[in-house]
């Protein structure tokens, strides 16, 4: 057993629902007890989907367990096929159904439903959502293609008169900004004359899956969902996989370079020259972003990309990097090593919270969970990956990938931070009579304190070195929003140096020590 307060991923059958909901003309019959239909609300409420996911649940109850739940499965299968008339039927167990072993897949195959059936095994007690999505996508692709399109011994040779094309694999419902990423990557590719053959699973029908081998290569856009499919297509049809995920300016540049190399296309001038990120990052206001301490925790793809962007494109210090995607942990470990860090690989949000508390970053880039944590700790946060909340499925065009994606990310990450000029002014006026942490803003005619008490929690010293009055006074002159860090650093320095009472010198010694 494993204690879980919040979970980063749903159960594997939820991954199957995501893939089914992403596609057209596909229906999933899920053998599951009453209550598992909650899954629908994530699509209809969080992503504001105007249709229910194409899932029929058997919703068995205690009284069914006494009789025959298998009969309920067969009835449900027939009713679902008759009502929804899908071109492809997926059949799976949820966690409870897995225990009662009705074998709904076998029942469906034997029921003569007149529709192709793919039976899924979801391993509910060892796997999770993203694995379930990847496995479902893989079973659909293999199930449809292996029976219909013969394997190739050699890579496909593109006819002279045909434009080069790729498949975009992995975008799905309830993924992070998939809708807009697809549009942005299509734009990026069209600029170098590459067409998109099929996008899957998002928006794909079974017939589109059959057309996958017609592309020159596969772009593994979201490895959490698409990696198994890309590997199989590479083996089966000798289709190369483009592995770079175009998140950030550097990665978008590398992505285009990889596409050009794999498809043997003529090289182009800087394909991302239109991006505003490089100039915004160079402009003087951004000087103040230098060395901002950033903590990153996300799925592997977004974590690795964010680490690269944060360090190389924003000039931040990445002080912590981790992921909940155990399947892709190796990439995150490698990215962390390059930054001189040890990756945090966990799906326990309490461990993530503890790491953030210790590291005291100035910005957290994470999921909805980290947003909760950062809010509680009073740290700025931007959401960069799922699980995300309704506000992270915005109405506006808001991609993360490609040129516009880099622009969007620049704005999104800067927003929670103190803007440069603003911070400079705060420093200048730190002890000003009307601009400090206890003064009421002059435009507010109120006796209330301007800053809630929470901002003052740094005043509660834990047992440790004592503070001389003069040092305490000097500490007060440091802007309140960094005072907590200054206090902790100084105390840590004093402990390390064996100093019992902190005076003004200790304060500045510590400042010098930590500013190296």
């Amino acid at each position: 057993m494993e204690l879980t307060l919040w979970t980063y991923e749903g159960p594997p059958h939820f991954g199957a629902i995501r893939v089914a909901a992403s596609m057209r003309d596909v229906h999933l019959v899920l053998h599951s007890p009453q209550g598992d239909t909650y899954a629908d609300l994530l699509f209809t409420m969080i992503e504001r989907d105007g249709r229910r996911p194409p899932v029929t649940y058997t919703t068995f109850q205690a009284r069914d367990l006494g009789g025959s739940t298998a009969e309920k499965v067969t009835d449900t299968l027939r009713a679902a096929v008759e009502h929804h008339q899908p071109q492809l039927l997926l059949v799976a167990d949820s966690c409870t159904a897995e225990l009662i072993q009705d074998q709904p897949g076998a029942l469906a195959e034997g029921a003569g439903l007149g529709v192709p059936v793919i039976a899924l095994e979801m391993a509910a007690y060892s796997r999770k959502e993203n694995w379930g999505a990847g496995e479902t996508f893989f079973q659909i692709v293999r199930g449809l293609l292996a029976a219909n399109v013969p394997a190739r011994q050699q890579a496909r040779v593109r006819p002279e008169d045909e434009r080069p094309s790729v498949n975009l694999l992995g975008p799905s419902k309830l993924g992070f900004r998939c809708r807009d990423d697809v549009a942005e990557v299509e734009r990026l590719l069209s600029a170098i004359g590459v067409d998109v053959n099929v996008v899957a699973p998002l928006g794909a029908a079974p017939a589109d899956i059959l057309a996958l081998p017609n592309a020159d290569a596969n772009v593994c856009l979201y490895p959490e969902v698409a990696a198994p499919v890309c590997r199989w297509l590479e083996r089966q049809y000798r289709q190369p996989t483009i592995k770079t995920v175009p998140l950030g300016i550097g990665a978008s540049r590398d992505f285009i370079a990889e596409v050009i190399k794999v498809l043997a296309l003529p090289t182009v001038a800087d394909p991302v020259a239109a991006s505003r990120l490089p100039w915004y990052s160079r402009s003087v206001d951004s000087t103040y972003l230098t060395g901002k301490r950033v903590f990153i925790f996300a799925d592997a793809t977004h974590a690795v990309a964010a680490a690269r962007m944060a360090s190389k494109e924003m000039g931040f210090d990445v002080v912590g990097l981790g992921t909940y995607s155990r399947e892709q942990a190796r990439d995150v470990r490698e990215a962390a090593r390059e930054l001189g860090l040890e990756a945090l690989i966990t799906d326990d949000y309490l461990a993530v919270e503890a790491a953030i508390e210790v590291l005291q970053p100035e910005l957290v880039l994470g999921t909805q969970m980290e947003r909760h944590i950062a809010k509680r700790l009073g740290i700025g946060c931007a959401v960069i990956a799922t699980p995300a909340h309704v506000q992270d499925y915005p109405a506006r065009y808001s991609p993360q990938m490609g040129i516009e994606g880099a622009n969007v990310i620049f704005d999104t990450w800067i927003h929670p931070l103190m803007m440069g000029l603003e911070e400079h002014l705060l420093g200048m006026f730190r002890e000003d009579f009307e601009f400090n942490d206890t003064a009421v803003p002059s435009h507010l005619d109120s006796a209330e304190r301007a800053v809630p008490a929470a901002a003052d929690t740094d005043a509660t010293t834990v047992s440790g070195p004592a503070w001389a009055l003069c040092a305490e006074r000097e500490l007060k002159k440091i802007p309140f929003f960094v005072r907590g860090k200054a206090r902790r650093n100084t105390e840590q320095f004093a402990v390390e140096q064996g100093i019992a009472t902190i005076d003004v010198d200790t304060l500045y010694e510590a400042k010098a020590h930590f500013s190296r």
Partner: protein
Amino acid sequence: MNSQVNSQVIARQVEPDAAQALIQERGQRAVFCGLTSIIWLHRKIQDAFFLVVGSRTCAHLLQSAGGVMIFSEPRFGTAVLQDRDLAGMADCNAELDRVVAQVLARRPSIRSLFLVGSCPSEVIKLDLDNAAKRLQQVHGGKLRVVAFSGSGIETTFSQGEDACLEQLVAALPESTDDAPSLLIAGTLPDIVEDQFQRLFASIGIERVAFFPGRQSDTLPSVGRNTRVLLAQPYLGSTARALEARGAMIIEAPFPLGIEGSALWFHAASAAFGVSPQAVDGVLAGPIARARRALAPLRDYLSGKRISFLPDSQLELPLARFLSAECGMTPIEVGTPFHDERWLRADMSLLTANGANAETRFVEGQDLEPALARVRADRPDLTVCGLGIANPLEAEGLRTKWSIELLFTPIQGFEQAADLAELFARPLRREGRLEVGSWS
């Protein structure tokens, strides 16, 4: 004036039921399981921790259904079963003890620990009752350990609270005196409890306790002197458990709307020998105030047609309020299960005033045919679960999602207008927006 109206209302209640045919449906149910009750139970019992013994699905459900509302560290969690637990490689009891120790170490102020059974824990027949007894011995003293089932196999949505309170009844101390006391069973928002407490005091009923209470150490006693008034319509098992302890159940409609609330107070007062006139005197003020607040909403809602898909188990009392007091016409009233004894009073009021011969009463659910009826009826408003609301809106049908009805103070006189407002808002919104056709 008020006393006349109330007496009429009471007279109407005792009319014989216009026997309503109940349509029973069996098919796909689009309802939450009982685990969802944890979301309001843990807010009510402020020193309790709810530990679900289940799967990642349980954890995902709780976070999806409750995540919107909870920003602090929740006082609920899931002990997620792993392959090694199922394969017998790990001793489930030892594992549970370890997880419980982990919870208590992190939250030392917890005074009640609820072990909540789930679909998987029930299918593998994990005995949480015994586990609760064992853990009670280990952690005794300051901690109470209670097990109940919130599984979807056993419970539907709000029935989780019924299962919880039913088990908690065993922990109630035995009443030692003969003076009658009133026990109000069913989770109510604190503000509603306080209002009710004040009204009962004015009526002259001082010995009033609420179950569950806000703190674990304030469990009410129960015995032959206890009169129980249900505040929620989904507490059949709890009521029977209280009866088994000698308590007497007062049957009444539920305190939704002015009429329901008035009859609820009258029924309790009658059981305590208070004269109806005295009760009317106390209720006159709140009733007049509630009528003033409700009047504009009644004008707005009157004549509008409404359908309920089965969900929270509040459907019948809500239909009664919306038809009798707001003038709406119920087209279909679906409810997950129809417990005749507890819904009798509301049903007879509804059939006497509001429902018409065409009103369909449905127990259980078969989702697709139910949705087909909504599409054919095209009611002005459909009350349904979160998974269905936006898809119906996308078809041009206005909806009210029902889970809000369990988190919002809706009971009593002061909330009658708020309750009506929940149904008026989606309709008013349609009237305001000029963004093109809804469908």
